[in-house]
């Protein structure tokens, strides 16, 4: 059996080439993340969805497209380069004129319907927040996890504007027995028996000030592929809860069921250093994924890049589940000693935090490792915390720069 470990080493590279022909050349063309399955290189291409710039196409249908590394050199990700992720293939064009959101459920005293105009008449709030797929970097999991084999780019950071979810829930008369708030989008499955994508969050998260029903992204209407006309924004939490094309919001006095709540989108209990818990959905062995783990990415250079000997400026982004980045540490000696990087513009605790670090490259191979630390004191992991769905990959990057 071939394992990921065998393919990672130098010897492994030639083994993979022998296996898959010109995979690596094609992979480089599509800007793939080093370490993703060689087979991805045979199907991944740079392709543009309508209204988007070319992104790395992992699958056509449902559409799953990730952003190339270079997109993350700015703390705000442009709308037309923002990643696209769908579970189900029936994605309608939603007409903003007839669009309505139904707000109800057994936890609502007075169910209501809101048009896009109604939503825009409510007090508007903005938040800069990272939207990251739970399975970002799944393609780097060892052992392999079957699924969409994301590299680094199933994420982005935008300025989201919309109404507060809590203001909308208040209009529907939230009962005190409400424990969860569930969302459904306009998109649906290709066959009737496939479970519709319905997700819930605990009521305490739903009524946080930063949780929005967003109709603007970076000052523009949401792109179709990112949830036009409106989507849920749950800052700090992974993208699975950020329902696109949201058409139904239900206040619930009982836990939401269904495939996408259990068994999907779960992590083993106690395996990750997380504070936010979703207790009404927890069982003895698994719990829904919640807040993002602290993470960082080198965006100035790709692994194996050529640099000139002498001063090299390395930079990138760091982010977490909304506590804020306190420090980014860089090591150029394989992790023996660490120095603090300079932090850039602070766009808020949910945003990408830019960082930069200068070091002197010696002739030959240089390594750069990065470790972000948040205000709770949480840091990245040196070794993958394996879990069956390939979530929460925040392994410290260790890239080589050749001078």
């Amino acid at each position, binding site marked *: *059996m*071939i*394992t*990921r470990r065998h393919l990672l080493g130098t010897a492994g590279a030639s083994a993979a080439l022998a*296996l*898959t022909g010109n995979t690596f050349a094609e992979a480089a063309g599509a800007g793939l993340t080093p370490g993703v*399955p*060689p*087979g*991805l290189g*045979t*199907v*991944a291409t740079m*392709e543009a*969805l*309508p*209204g988007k710039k070319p992104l790395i*196409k*992992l*699958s*056509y*249908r*449902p*559409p799953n497209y990730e952003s190339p590394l270079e997109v993350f050199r700015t703390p705000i990700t442009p709308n037309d380069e923002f990643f696209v992720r769908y579970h189900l*293939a029936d*994605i309608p*064009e*939603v007409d903003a004129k007839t669009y309505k959101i139904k707000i109800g459920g057994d936890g609502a005293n007075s169910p209501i319907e809101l048009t896009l105009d109604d939503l825009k008449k409510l007090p508007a709030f903005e938040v800069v927040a990272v939207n990251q797929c739970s399975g970002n970097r799944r393609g780097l999991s060892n*052992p*392999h996890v*079957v*699924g*969409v*084999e994301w590299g680094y780019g199933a994420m982005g950071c935008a300025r989201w504007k919309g109404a507060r979810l809590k203001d909308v829930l208040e209009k529907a008369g939230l009962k005190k027995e409400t424990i969860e708030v569930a969302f459904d989008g306009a998109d649906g*499955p*290709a*066959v*009737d*028996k*496939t*479970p519709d994508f319905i997700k819930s969050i605990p009521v305490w998260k739903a009524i946080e000030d930063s949780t929005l029903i967003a109709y603007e992204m970076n000052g523009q*209407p949401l*792109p*179709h*592929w990112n949830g*036009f006309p409106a989507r849920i924004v749950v800052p700090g939490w992974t993208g699975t809860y950020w329902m696109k094309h949201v058409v139904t919001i239900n206040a619930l006095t009982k836990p939401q069921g269904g*495939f996408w709540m259990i*068994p999907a989108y779960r992590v083993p209990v106690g395996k990750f250093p997380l504070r936010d818990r979703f207790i009404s959905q927890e069982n003895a062995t698994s719990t829904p994924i919640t807040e993002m783990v602290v993470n960082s990415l080198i965006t100035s250079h790709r692994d194996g890049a050529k640099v000139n000997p002498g001063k090299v400026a390395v930079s990138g982004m760091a982010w977490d589940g909304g506590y804020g980045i306190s420090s980014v540490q860089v090591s150029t000696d394989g992790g023996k000693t660490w120095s603090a990087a300079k932090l850039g513009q602070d766009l808020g605790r949910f945003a990408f935090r830019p960082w930069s670090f200068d070091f002197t490259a010696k002739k030959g191979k240089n390594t750069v490792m990065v470790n972000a630390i948040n205000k709770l004191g949480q840091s990245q992991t040196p070794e993958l915390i394996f879990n069956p769905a390939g979530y929460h990959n925040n392994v410290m990057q260790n890239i080589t720069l050749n001078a």
Partner: protein
Amino acid sequence: MRVFLIAAIAALIALPAAADEKPVQLKKAPGLDKVEANCQACHSLDYIPMNSPFPNAALWDAEVTKMIKAYGAPIDDADAKAIAEYLKANYGS
């Protein structure tokens, strides 16, 4: 015509439209007809090579079962077996 279409698309900013899906060529081998007849109803075929070569026989079996049991794919037993055998022989380890 093509130029006209591109101009029309450019004129309508954020015009939602289906992805321009190109055929995904899988390895020609026994069982490919069953894969093409069943799997493409719900998803494009790039999902298969994307995961290769890592899944072993048990993982590919589990994946076919998941498509039927969890996602409700209407695939009969004989086709499911042929699909699993195709995946193991051509995209497994």
